[in-house]
């Protein structure tokens, strides 16, 4: 009903050309105006529909509860099915035994040691890989010659899945920490390189013009205009690299690891101790969460000028 009311108005407009023709003939605009105003239409009450703030606020209050509902149900189903004997512990340990395994591993310091060894590897690989990525990105981004030399080579190497390199690295570097760190470093180079290059190249041309107008040297253009502009992009690359370093860590540690989280998990797997395997998986997940927090903190500290970060 109301919809049809509102359609009346375009109908009026549709008649306008005819009115204009009359206007041209009669030459009296008042006649046409009066004719247009004479055709009635109803007004729709647009203020009748209101927001329902009460319902939305209510939903917001229980949002966390709602979000936790499905995970909690899964956890209960897991605990129930394992303790009722539906699923044998060799297939899937119960949440309770996973918790106990974690407590034991922490109590005798095994988990802490493994964690220290593994994060050490990931961090070393990340620092080396990100360092190479930033350096290569700057060289390729700032100098045309650098782009010719670096870019196509890295683009080519990028197509190699890093996990395929594990057997080669084992031959080259043995089975100690070195092949693992090298693998993580290699995996981290590419996201950092690509984002650094894009960040350097993506600098606003109009800002460069300002630099030229006010007589900035090339060095100052780079330090004051190009690098700060590239920084958010570099951080995105590092964020990817952190995730990938964790992935590479897991992949590298599955093979010939005598220490670290991977060794812990692989040994437990050999002994069919699914509780310890799950502890390992959870720790990997927590590491991923930690990585995200660290990156957010870095962005907040390094990019204070960015509106999105200031507001959040």
């Amino acid at each position, binding site marked *: 009903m109301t919809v049809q009311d509102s359609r009346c108005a375009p109908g009026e407009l549709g008649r306008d050309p005819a009115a204009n023709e009359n206007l041209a003939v009669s030459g009296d605009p008042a006649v046409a105006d009066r004719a247009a105003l004479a055709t009635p239409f109803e007004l729709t009450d647009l203020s009748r529909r209101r927001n329902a703030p009460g319902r939305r606020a209510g939903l917001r209050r229980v949002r966390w509860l709602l979000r936790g509902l499905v995970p909690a149900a899964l956890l209960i189903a897991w605990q129930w099915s394992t303790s009722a004997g539906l699923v044998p512990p060799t297939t899937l340990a119960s949440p309770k035994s996973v918790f106990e395994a974690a407590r034991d591993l922490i109590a005798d310091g095994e988990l802490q040691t493994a964690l220290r060894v593994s994060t050490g590897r990931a961090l070393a690989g990340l620092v080396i890989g990100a360092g190479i990525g930033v350096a290569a990105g700057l060289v390729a981004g700032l100098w045309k010659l650098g782009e010719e030399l670096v870019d196509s080579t890295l683009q080519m190497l990028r197509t190699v899945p890093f996990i395929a390199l594990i057997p080669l690295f084992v031959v080259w570097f043995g089975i100690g920490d070195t092949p693992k760190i090298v693998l993580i470093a290699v995996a981290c180079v590419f996201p950092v390189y690509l984002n650094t290059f894009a960040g350097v190249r993506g600098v606003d041309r*109009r800002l460069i013009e*300002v630099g030229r107008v*006010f007589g900035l040297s090339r060095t100052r253009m780079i330090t004051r205009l190009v690098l700060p502009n590239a920084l958010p992009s570099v951080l995105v690359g590092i964020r990817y690299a952190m995730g990938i370093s964790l992935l590479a860590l897991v992949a590298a540690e599955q093979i010939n690891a005598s220490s670290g989280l991977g060794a812990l998990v692989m040994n437990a797997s050999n002994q069919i101790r699914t509780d310890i395997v799950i502890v390992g998986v959870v720790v990997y997940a927590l590491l991923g969460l930690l990585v995200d927090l660290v990156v957010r903190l870095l962005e907040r500290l390094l990019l204070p000028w960015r509106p999105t970060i200031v507001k959040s």
Partner: protein
Amino acid sequence: MTTPAGTTPAPAQPAVVMRDVGKAFAARRILDDFALTIARGEFVALLGRSGSGKTTLLRILAELDTVDEGTVLAPRNRSVVFQEPRLIPSERVWRNVLLGLPRRESTLARAQEALAEVNLADHARAWPHTLSGGEAQRVALARALVHRPDLLLLDEPFAALDALTRLRTQALVHELWHRHRPAVLLVTHDVDEALRLADRVVVLTDGKVGLDLRVDLPRPREGTGSRFGDLRSQLLAELGVARPSSPA
């Protein structure tokens, strides 16, 4: 054309000299045997239809574009205010203002002095993204004036501002020009703005000076009166708005 008023000095000491200037993009000739002289301290507004090459002319004087032929002389100490503020987002306002100054002159006090002139002294430590459009443009103005330029190039600096802010910023530019007396080239497409601010209004038509009007009106100008209206109709005619005009 009107005869130059006797009150302004003859361009004996020019700030800008352009002679026989030619400039083409692809096959399109933007400037063709173009000549323009701006005296020291003179405020010149440059009008022209869109695409007539006004901005190209300004960019040539800013050394952001090159000429194909001819002579261009300009002071070394020039500043530009663009249509957009073009502030560096990663630096606070006061650092933006000092851009390009020698290190020993780059002090917070110097920046604050320049910001005070555009009534933004208390925004020195703000990030550019927290400023409104008009404030950011005033920072750009402070950045241009901190160099005490001999030639100030304004490329439609008011175009992106709302009507009220535009009037206020125009008055500010007029005041600062009056105080520091740089030669000014204001590129605009607003005839009233040109007439309110400039000593001379030049219309760029087909790569040449189509009209060169001396604005012999007392300052500050209200934009009313018959003489103002008379000058406005002349300019609009040259721009092809009021009535069709034969090419100059």
